[in-house]
């Protein structure tokens, strides 16, 4: 927050000169990133994910009571009605109740919602059905498959584009930074037992695009500067480039962050998981495009000479200045 206010008040002529890329800092951040990823993978393997019914299949009902609802009473009613696995919780307020059921072996899984509404309306309290979601076992499998394919297509598409526009080592580094973010989002969702549903998956894929956008801007500047600053080492050039794009990085990540924060606080309960995944993703994505992507490029040994073939294009762009 403080950083943002400083930038907003800053004069046009201020110049940043933070040290991002020296060996010591790189090691520290690499260690932090690596441990975050290890924790994420560890949590994913040990704790697993709390998957939403989009993936597991099952039935989800949101009902609204005219007066405050008594969860224990609802649980009892459902238990007696034969729904032993029913998970009942408040959703947003004490009037709204969320009921989750697993897939059932009986054949009439499609008619569950009506039976439950019937069970609950026998109470004195008036019940209104707000939302019903039933997902069969076939659908979840397709979704996970589709999600993985989308991820793969994105990776390949970007790899090709960045390799053509930049260089293959930049492309590989961009992919590393790109995979870094979803792993950490998934890790946080797993660690804190947050529900992972279809919208969270969509948010992750959007973050992949966002984080990449950030990385590309930094890379673009590195490419420019590598060709302009002939005396400095690659490390120094990277440091200058990150500093030069720092204001832009902070401005854009904050402008995106405030819109997503608005979504989180104003957008309602249905969109909470989605907004949360985006918030985590923007924070992690901004960090990863500064540290992970550039450090990875450096580690892979990006050199000035690698960029020489595209010089003619750069000159064409520079001509106007």
């Amino acid at each position: 927050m403080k950083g943002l206010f400083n930038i907003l008040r800053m004069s046009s002529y201020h110049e940043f000169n933070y040290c991002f890329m020296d060996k010591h800092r790189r090691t520290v951040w690499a260690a932090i990133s690596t441990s975050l990823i290890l924790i994420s993978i560890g949590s994913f393997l040990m704790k697993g994910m709390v998957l939403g019914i989009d993936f597991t299949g099952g039935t989800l009902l949101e009902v609204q009571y005219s007066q405050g609802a008594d969860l224990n009473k609802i649980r009892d009613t459902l238990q007696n009605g034969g729904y032993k696995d029913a998970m009942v919780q408040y959703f947003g307020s004490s009037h709204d109740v969320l009921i989750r059921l697993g897939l059932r072996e009986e054949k009439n899984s499609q008619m569950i919602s009506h039976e439950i509404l019937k069970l609950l309306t026998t109470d004195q309290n008036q019940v209104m059905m707000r939302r019903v979601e039933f997902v069969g076992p076939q659908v979840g499998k397709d979704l996970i498959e589709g999600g993985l394919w989308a991820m793969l297509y994105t990776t390949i598409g970007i790899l090709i584009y960045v390799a053509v526009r930049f260089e293959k080592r930049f492309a590989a580094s961009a992919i590393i930074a790109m995979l870094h973010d979803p792993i950490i989002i998934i890790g946080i969702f797993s660690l804190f037992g947050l529900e992972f549903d279809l919208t969270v998956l969509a948010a992750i894929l959007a973050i992949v695009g966002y984080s990449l956008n950030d990385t590309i801007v930094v890379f673009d500047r590195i490419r420019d500067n590598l060709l302009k600053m002939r005396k400095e080492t690659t490390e120094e050039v990277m440091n200058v480039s990150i500093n030069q794009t720092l204001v832009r990085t902070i401005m854009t990540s904050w402008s995106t962050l405030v819109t997503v924060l608005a979504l989180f606080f104003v957008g309602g309960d249905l969109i909470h998981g989605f907004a949360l995944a985006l918030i985590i993703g923007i924070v992690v994505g901004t960090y990863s495009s500064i540290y992970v992507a550039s450090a990875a490029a450096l580690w892979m040994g990006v050199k000035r000479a690698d960029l020489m073939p595209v010089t003619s294009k750069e000159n064409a762009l520079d001509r106007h200045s």
Partner: protein
Amino acid sequence: MNQYSTWRYLAIFGSVLIAMLYAIPNLFGEEPAVQISSAYAREAKIDDNTQKTVDDILKNTNVTPKRIERDDKQILIRFKDTDEQLKAYTALKNGLSGFVVAQNLASTTPNWLLAIGAKPMYLGLDLRGGIHFLMAIDMQTAIRQDEERFSQEFRNLFREEKTRYKTVQRNTQGGVFISFVDVASRDKAVGLIKNRYSDLLVKTIDEPENFNATFTYTPQALKQIKDTAVEQNLTTLRNRVNELGVSEPVIQRQGEDRIVVQLPGIQDTARAKEILGSTATLEFRLVGEEGASSQQMKNREGQPVWLKRSVIVTGDQISHASSGVDHQSGRPAVMVRLDGKGAKRMYETTKENVKKPMAVLFIEHKVTTSMVDGKEVKNRQKVEEVINVATIQEAFGQNFQITGLSQNEAVNLALLLRAGALKAPMEIVEERTIGPSLGKENINQGVNSIIVGFVLVVIMITVRYRLFGMIANTALFLNVIMLVALLSIIQATLTLPGLAGILLTIGMAIDANVLIYERIREEIKIGNTPQACIYAGYEKAWATILDSNVTTLIGGLALFSFGSGPVKGFAITLCLGILTSMFTSVTISRAMTNWFFGGKKLTKLSV
């Protein structure tokens, strides 16, 4: 420097005007309406008579509509509130036969806008309330039905052609298995079948005493059957949804063997499921005696009834059905009218079998999937029930009636017979129901978060970039308008995640202007003249903007290709938002900058 030609300003200004024009319909509200359309194209047409009947019914119920609009296909009646709408709806539904009467929310967009094709965005079910079903077709049952039919037809064929055979039966693992006593009759039979059924593959196996042949579908035929099954089911579902009376339903094929059905505004999921998923059909057969030529069935009380194997008429041959009451007994009945071929067969059969009993067999296929020990298990069930046995009093053909059902069953069966049978049973694999109040809430919350997010971004940008920031903010606002216009024009479905996508676009679209302005600031630092700074800022930032947007677009397209329903809505707004933002934040903001500053002597830039 930094000047555009007049035509360029005009072109940009024109595109903004057009976008505004097509975005405007979204500002108009909706009002309750009742929509009347003919059930099927071939039946009742909307004409002056219909209009008169409608007027009379409305007059009798003391409802004064706000406005009545009529064209060849439908009558749309608008009301001032939902009470009047409901009153009129109930009266019209009961008073009009042969028409689909549906409750609807009609947009109040003025006609001149509608005339140029400007419509409000199409709201998804999570924003307007309604039911979404994803149905999977069970092809195995469809093929089994075909094979059972083949078995019957082969027997008939062999009888007609005097070919001797031992058995004809359907293999449990698929295919029709026929066994013969000698090679000659087998070869003759194979020849006969090959002539008549070009889409079957034959495999012959000889055993010491038996000469066998197995017939299965060719792979091409299987593919074609799948396609026709999906097509036929789509048509049937459309008819059934028509019968339910839904305005603006969506019925589409999704993937190889799935169908999406979306019914906006419908709340009664139980009836919708009963009607959509039902494969119920009828067969008329003579009652036979115990033995090989008959099959044992059960009646509704569970007592056995023996029916002859050959079917007189099936449900497909019913051309019209309606429910009513049997005048003699006062019991619920289904009035049936057969098509020409069916009527002829029925007449011939009944003429020869007067005073003999005939049965009506009710057949329904059900498929459900459940998880047992982590594996999917499909439960296929065929329900066959003799609903009625009656003695043939005299020969009859085209028109007759069936009794033996409850009132509700008679209404549903008539509807199902009328709308046609499903080629293959369908299973609901996904269902999402959103209540109307939740839909409204979702819209409000979504729009509010867009407003809050937009205002926050505008404040940030104004504080940092001052006068240039105002240009960026104007471009950002135009970006939202262009995005809304584009979504309205292509009538893409707007969902709650779609609204989130618009919001995210706002946050990300400003990036282009940030990139440009930071470049301009850098140029100022170097000490270039203001005009040169503006020029260089835009030119140098362009490559970066293009690179970063293309990569984001690649992610968005992948999301679009895999996504279904709500996720697709998000992907569409995200992708379109990237495209519009490139136009507004680069082209439009440049045009504005040039308009205000171009060609003037500037000493300082407010950036």
